[in-house]
């Protein structure tokens, strides 16, 4: 393999990891900190993308302003949903899951009514840069930078601030946290809002490279869940390690063809064959298979495995 091919493969792996981190971070936060399976997370992602669309198309704001607005708007939506619905269901995980599923359907319906069921694009100005014989989109580097920034932000927030300390205390023991003076309902509300905001940020940053359509969340939610489940209970370590492992496999199989299967029919030149590997489709299948294997080996997820060993 030549040097430029190697470089491009590394970049593609980085891009796969980036996308998984963006998709999974908010979900992992809500699941890890609150033990809530939020089935509306995909629609928070969608809402982020539509916030950007609205800002750019209808309010004629610069793209970056729309992208900064998106996490705030979606965090607001998340907080409203927590206050109106989820708050009433704490301690009943199944009901919470059903409720968030309902919210998910409701949001899809609402967004469709407002914006219509068409796919819209968001134009952006960045181009490509040259890696040897290949050209590579600059925007992907921006995405990786944003994903890294979000992870770092979450880390600093939870590790070094009073909010983070209280949030971790609340998760460790909600009763004791309340008895120690922490307004625990407020902590849950803010944590949920933060998880929603992160999904909004992901939807915003990915909006220019995907079709913006009311059902777009559905496309991504599965990969987000797979990443969270493989990551296990420790939010950041889990998300990063899981996204790295899965993104690595996904990018490799997407680029390289593993083998060919001959098929019937007439081809020129013969024989007819399908490449297994070498496309995004097989990349996602490989991701799924690899995730299943990992979970057989490490049922607690990657971070759960490391935590047990210590």
């Amino acid at each position, binding site marked *: 393999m030549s040097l430029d091919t190697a470089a491009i493969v590394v970049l593609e792996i980085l891009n796969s990891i980036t996308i998984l981190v963006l998709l999974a971070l908010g979900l992992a936060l809500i699941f890890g900190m609150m033990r809530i399976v939020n089935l509306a997370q995909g629609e928070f992602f969608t809402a982020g993308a539509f916030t950007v669309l609205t800002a750019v198309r209808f309010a004629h704001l610069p793209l970056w302003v729309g992208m900064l607005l998106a996490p705030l708007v979606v965090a607001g939506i998340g907080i409203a949903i927590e206050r109106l619905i989820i708050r009433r269901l704490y301690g009943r995980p199944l009901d919470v899951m059903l409720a968030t599923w309902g919210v998910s359907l409701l949001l899809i319906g609402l967004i469709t009514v407002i914006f219509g069921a068409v796919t819209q694009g968001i134009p952006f100005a960045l181009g490509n840069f040259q890696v040897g014989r290949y050209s590579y989109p600059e925007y992907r580097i921006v995405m990786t930078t944003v994903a890294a920034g979000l992870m770092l932000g979450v880390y600093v927030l939870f590790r070094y601030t009073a909010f983070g*300390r209280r949030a971790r*205390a609340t998760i*460790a*023991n909600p009763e*004791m946290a309340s008895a*120690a*003076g*922490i307004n625990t309902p407020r902590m849950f509300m803010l944590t949920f809002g933060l998880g929603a905001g992160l999904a909004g940020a992901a939807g915003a940053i990915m909006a220019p490279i995907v079709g913006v359509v009311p059902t777009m969340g559905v496309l991504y939610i599965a990969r987000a869940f797979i990443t969270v489940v493989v990551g296990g209970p420790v939010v950041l370590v889990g998300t990063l390690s899981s996204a790295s492992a899965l993104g690595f496999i996904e990018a490799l199989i997407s680029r390289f063809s593993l083998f060919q299967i001959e098929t019937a029919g007439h081809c020129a030149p013969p024989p007819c064959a399908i490449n297994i590997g070498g496309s995004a489709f097989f990349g996602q299948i490989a991701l799924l298979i690899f995730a299943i294997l990992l979970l057989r080996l490490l049922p607690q997820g990657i971070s759960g495995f490391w935590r047990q060993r210590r």
Partner: protein
Amino acid sequence: MLSVAEIHVAYGRTPALTGPSLAVGPGEIVSIIGRNGVGKTTLLKAIIGLLRVTSGTIHLDGQDVTRLPAYERARRGLGYVPQGRMIFAGLTVEENLLIGADLSPAIGRALVEEVLTEFPHLRQRYRQRGDTLSGGEQQMLALGRALAGGPKVLLLDEPSEGIQPSIVEEIGTRIASISRARGLAIVLVEQNIEFAAALAQRIYVMEKGRIAREIPPERVMDEDIVRDYLAV
């Protein structure tokens, strides 16, 4: 300071407290003893606000706090040191103390420093995870966490439970001196009668969800009392 009047608490349909009353003044240590399962922990949880009372009142500093959530009571000066310590797992000793100190932002740091002076063990373990400490050290940390909030009333649930005697003695000495120095009111739930008698000015015996009688601390070790109210 703290006054509890005929509170009732139930777990589902099973009554757990049937009207105990209690009053503690500044600088006073009142102890509650009684067999396992009579409702001592339930009483403290009801006072701090982790359990809802169905009737009766709880006043703190003259204010009715009966309907306030636990965190509001903590902010008004109730400190809680639960049975089993309940150190926040994953948080360092420092962070556990800061959770307490968050209650009084202006003087929190100074209160933490005071706690570290009272319990030098904690200073040695300052950056260590709180849940990796020994039982005795965790008890000091749980006490420190409550004290760092600058409480007016401290609720202690079996602080001597499962701790080696030399540490129990150290903790007892600290509790007494802090109560005196700060004018802190303390409700001390105990099964260790000797420990309770050494610290408390008044001792109450609890039986089946209510306070059955008061006994003078100097008589608490008398054989008939131990047999009647405490022996299994």
